[in-house]
């Protein structure tokens, strides 16, 4: 019987104790979920497991044998594979080459045996029953299949312990189902699965046991069937969320039409038309790749608009680039916060004031006092937790980074805010704060376009919902009549 | 559309730049050519009279396989060889390999096809020496190498060679300075310093600097050892700046010295030292001697006095002279190539390596000695 045991693992970074005496065991044939808020120590534990970093004290036992991994290489040879959020694949190589990355079959003449390579890979693909080809290039297949490539790599290595780090964060619901099928197959084959996720609902679908961490401390290990979401959240944050969305203060005043989009076409989306009113939260639902992000980028001037009209306050406006969109009162918090949202190496202050540089400058010179005043004000309003305005934004938690991006558009007096997956990668407690913030902004009369892949969020927050599939709008739903089932039907079925 | 326009603009600009560049170059080249032609015509006229007396010899065609014709030295070589050729009933056929060794081999075949009698080679790649020598032997061509030695894998010469003697050039400069000390009655060496500008990773500069040091120390034996300074130049800094910085550093390190003697292994670097001396106000007593004279001559055309006292001058004439002499010995006198330049032959070598060092020129006599190279 295979098992892995963590025993008294301690890890301290310069000033922060990341892990304190973590001990638990995961057995073969069980999916052990690891949950906790951001900063609870999940990632650190995975890094120790993968040999990326070394614990200060404590050890890992595999089948009772003590192991100390000095490098990822040692962990791999001991049968451990960790599948990270950031996929570790080579985009320009084929599926087969990625799966057999470090052990390409070689012919007698030292050349790569492509026949054998593709045959072996095909066999693995068949095992998992996936619709991809060994010779597909990895950057031509979807994110979900890229992840499958990683899993196949772990499977090919015959890893007995496979850990997943937030595997579903960029997958749509149907893709998640596919992933779960694969994970169940691995479980049946007797692998030890460690599954790290924010999404409690998934944990109930896939796992047998749940380990809860909080602030680097082991809180509890419970059997999934004997617990509930409420209990887990209580463990994680020390309070009962109850029904999160019911407790939020909602906006009741919907005003005039503020933005109307008529027949917009771009390379990726076609025939998009919708309206949004002052004070309205308009949810955009759909699977990953349905064209929601692309629609917003086209409206915002980030991508080229082939045809269609945009009306703001009943005036036809021309938007040729983001800067003209901003002049018209639009603001966009992009889907990929770290690569398109925040400017990592710069301060909180500069990350906010970037949208109002014109306003705070006199003859090209920055009025630092004015900048400081405006920003201090907004930072206080939104309750952004930062040591100082000069702190680099990357030192802030995900939730606070998202708030900084919101602040960027609030200082620019945006009237229409486009929020693309604003709660991705943010822990439960901070999510609630962001929800309330969005509702508060709507109460102030802003029109908010809210894109999310989490259906509960969309249903819980939106006044109206637009559902998209394959670059087109497939339906409109009123907030109160929307259910997950209705949305999924529109999003998935032709 | 916009992209297309931009690309066109960029290409147009680049073409324009290149054309103006080439235009400039051609102008200078053309100018040079006309001057060369004038002199050759004059010389030819003079020679005509002499020629009538001698027996009319068989007409020869000599090939010049050039490494790259865009450098001034190669243009001068061609002109000088043409001048010699017109004196001895021969014509020069030039081909430009443009740094491409493969092309140079092809050009040699070409020349063999055109039945030339001999070739002068500025080799594009030293590794090809053996190949070229073999081809010439098969085709029974006289072969002389200039500027870069043609040697086999054991370092043995594969044909008669002519090259500049860097060490020897250092020698004549040091000799000139020793004489300068004597002429100016400088006998108290306490406050006299010698800067021997030097760059250890460039062979020909290293040779020149060694020639200076060895000779000077031999001729002025009581010159204090600590006052003779080899100043290394930074190779990332080019030309005058390298000389300037190296000289400046040495001058700064020795405030006790009031009379500086400087040798620059190149003209520009010597010039840099002159600027450094002027900068610190020590130029009145100083004496700078450089090698090359192509920048010194411009300095000497100015009215003002300068501490740039002399330069060793060599030209394509010196080189072409030796090359032509060897070529004529083989083709006209039927000498075995192994006996050409026999006075320069070293132990263990089959062929002679002729060298030239040039001569010293000063502000007073440079026009006279340098002739057309003074302009």
């Amino acid at each position, binding site marked *: 019987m295979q098992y892995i045991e963590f025993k008294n693992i301690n890890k301290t970074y*310069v000033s922060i104790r990341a892990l304190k005496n973590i001990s638990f065991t995961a057995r073969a044939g069980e999916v052990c979920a690891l949950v906790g808020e951001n900063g609870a120590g999940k990632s650190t534990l995975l890094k120790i497991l993968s040999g990326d970093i070394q614990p200060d004290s404590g050890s890992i036992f595999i089948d009772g044998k003590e192991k100390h991994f000095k490098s990822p290489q040692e962990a791999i040879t001991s049968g451990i594979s960790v599948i990270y959020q950031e996929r570790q694949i080579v985009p320009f190589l084929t599926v087969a080459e990625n799966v057999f990355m470090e052990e390409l079959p070689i012919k007698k003449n030292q050349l790569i045996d492509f026949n054998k390579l593709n045959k072996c890979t095909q066999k693995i693909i068949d095992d998992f029953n996936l619709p991809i080809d060994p010779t597909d290039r990895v950057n031509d297949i979807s994110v979900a299949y890229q992840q499958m490539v990683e899993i196949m790599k772990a499977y090919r290595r015959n890893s007995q312990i496979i850990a997943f780090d937030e595997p579903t964060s960029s997958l749509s619901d149907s893709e998640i189902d596919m992933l779960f099928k694969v994970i169940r197959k691995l479980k049946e084959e007797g692998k030890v699965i460690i599954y790290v996720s924010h999404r409690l609902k998934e944990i109930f679908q896939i796992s047998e046991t749940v380990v809860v961490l909080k602030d680097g401390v082991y809180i509890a290990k419970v059997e999934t069937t004997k617990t509930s979401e409420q209990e887990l959240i209580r463990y994680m944050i020390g309070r009962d969320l109850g029904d999160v969305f019911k407790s939020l203060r909602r906006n009741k005043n919907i005003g005039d039409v503020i933005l109307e989009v008529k027949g917009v076409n771009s390379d990726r989306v076609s025939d998009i038309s919708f309206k949004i009113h002052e004070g309205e939260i308009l949810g955009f639902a759909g699977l990953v790749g349905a064209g929601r992000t692309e629609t917003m980028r086209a409206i*915002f001037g*980030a991508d080229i608009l082939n045809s269609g009209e945009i009306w703001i306050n009943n005036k036809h406006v021309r938007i040729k680039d*983001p*800067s003209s969109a901003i002049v018209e009162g639009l603001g966009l918090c*992009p889907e990929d916060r770290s*690569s*398109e*949202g925040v*400017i990592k*190496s*710069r301060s909180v202050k*500069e990350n906010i*004031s*970037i949208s109002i*540089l014109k306003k705070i400058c006199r003859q090209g*010179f*920055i009025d*630092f006092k004015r900048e400081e005043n405006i920003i201090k004000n907004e930072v206080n309003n939104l309750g952004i937790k930062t040591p100082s305005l000069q702190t680099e934004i990357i030192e802030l938690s995900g939730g606070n980074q998202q708030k900084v991006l919101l602040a*960027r558009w609030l200082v620019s007096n945006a009237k229409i805010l486009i929020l693309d997956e604003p709660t991705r990668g943010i822990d439960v407690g901070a999510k609630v704060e962001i929800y309330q913030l969005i509702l508060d902004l709507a109460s102030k009369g802003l029109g908010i376009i809210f894109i999310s892949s989490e259906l509960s969020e969309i249903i819980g927050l939106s006044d109206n919902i637009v559902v998209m599939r394959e670059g087109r709008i497939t339906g409109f739903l009123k907030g109160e009549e929307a259910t997950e089932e209705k949305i999924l039907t529109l999003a998935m079925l032709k | 559309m916009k*992209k297309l326009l*931009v*690309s066109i*603009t*960029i290409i147009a600009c680049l073409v324009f730049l*290149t054309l*103006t*560049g080439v235009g400039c*170059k051609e102008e200078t080249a053309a100018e040079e050519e006309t001057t060369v032609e004038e002199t050759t015509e004059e010389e030819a006229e003079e020679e005509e009279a002499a020629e009538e007396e001698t027996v009319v010899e068989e007409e020869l065609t000599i090939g010049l396989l050039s490494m790259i014709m*865009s450098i001034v030295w190669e243009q001068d070589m061609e002109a000088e060889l043409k001048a010699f050729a017109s004196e001895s009933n021969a014509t020069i056929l030039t081909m430009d390999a443009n740094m491409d060794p493969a092309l140079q081999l092809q050009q040699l075949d070409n020349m063999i096809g055109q039945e030339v009698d001999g070739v002068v080679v500025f080799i594009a790649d030293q590794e090809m020496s053996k190949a070229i020598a073999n081809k010439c032997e098969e085709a029974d061509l006289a072969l002389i190498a200039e500027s870069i030695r043609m040697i086999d894998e054991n370092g043995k010469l594969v044909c008669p060679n002519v090259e500049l003697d860097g060490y020897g050039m250092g020698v004549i400069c040091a000799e000139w300075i020793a004489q300068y000390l004597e002429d100016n009655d400088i006998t108290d060496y306490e406050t006299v310093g010698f800067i021997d500008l030097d*760059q*250890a*990773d460039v062979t020909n500069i290293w040779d020149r600097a060694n020639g200076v040091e060895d000779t000077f120390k031999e001729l002025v034996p009581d010159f204090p050892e600590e006052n003779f*300074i*080899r*100043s*290394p130049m*930074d190779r*990332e800094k*080019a*030309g*005058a*700046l390298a000389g*300037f910085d*190296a000289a*400046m*550093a*040495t001058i*700064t*390190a*020795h*405030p006790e010295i009031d009379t500086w003697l400087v040798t620059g292994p190149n*003209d*520009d670097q010597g*010039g840099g030292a002159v*600027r450094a001396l*002027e900068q610190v106000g020590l130029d009145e007593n100083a004496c700078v001697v450089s090698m090359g004279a*192509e*920048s010194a001559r411009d300095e000497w055309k*100015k009215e003002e006095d300068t501490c740039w006292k002399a330069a060793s001058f060599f030209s394509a004439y010196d080189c072409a002279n030796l090359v032509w002499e060897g070529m004529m010995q083989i083709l006209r006198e039927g000498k075995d190539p192994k006996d050409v330049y026999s006075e320069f032959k070293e132990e263990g070598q089959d062929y002679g390596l002729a060298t030239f060092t040039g001569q010293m020129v000063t502000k007073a006599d440079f026009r006279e000695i340098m002739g057309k190279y003074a302009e």
Partner: protein
Amino acid sequence: MKKIIKKIQKNEQVSLIIILIAIVCVFTAIQPNYFSVRNLINILFSASIVGMVAFGETFLIIGGQIDLSPGAVAAFSGVLAAILLNAGVPMILTIFIVIAMAMLIGYLISLMINFLKMEPFIVTLAIMSVFTGLAFIIGGGRSIPITNKSFIYFGAGDIFGIPISIVIFAVIFVIFHIILTRTRFGRTVYMVGGNEAASRLAGINPKKIKTMLYLITPVMASIGGMILAGRMNSGQPTAQSHLMFGALTAAIVGGVRFGGGKGTLYGCLIGVLLLESFKNGIAVLNVQTFWQNVASGVLLIVALSADYARTARNK
């Protein structure tokens, strides 16, 4: 004591200043004349030319760009100025034409990067090659003598004993520092360098910023090239590769982050001073050239690892 150490660790440039002081002390101990007014002026003079280019590169690197061509552009500018002066063009007009030429080069580079989406590294490498060649071609491969007295004064003259190039350098430093820290342009350079995609979505036009950036280095290089030409009384066609290497090294040593978004002009200034005092010291000590190369490399590693040690401890 602990407080002082913490303060030192916080200040980005302190480790460099300590190295700078150490270098000066060591060289002075070996060769007392190193610390003389004349030599300090020497150091400042070489620093002034490399420094101008380094300031340009600092802007570019902060903006996430790079320019490899300044050494070639400097040589080209020097030769061009000499040719123009010899053709009887007045000095002021000559300077104007050469700077205009440099701006044209910069504009060409920016067009290729903005519209043809070429890599800055490749584009500027090509431009470097083109102008290395052109510098030889327009002058026929020789150095071109300069006789214009006022132009020579521009390179070699001084005001109250301070060489003019140092004065120009100081003025450029102050202006550039103000531009970088206090103006909208400076702020946007940081933003674009920190994250181009994000700054575009926040309403900045990165193409415009890049166009402006690529004007700076060629202009700095051309001014440096003309000062050098004036000082040497001749336009020298050989590319001043030390300008490019020196400028890049100084900027990186001075804490400008390769990849963009971070760095200060005074950091770069300290980097330049550090490098030049070191190079000068080695020359004053009469160390052979190849040892100079080795020592420069070692210095770069020491400076960067000192910086790394400091930031690592901060985290």
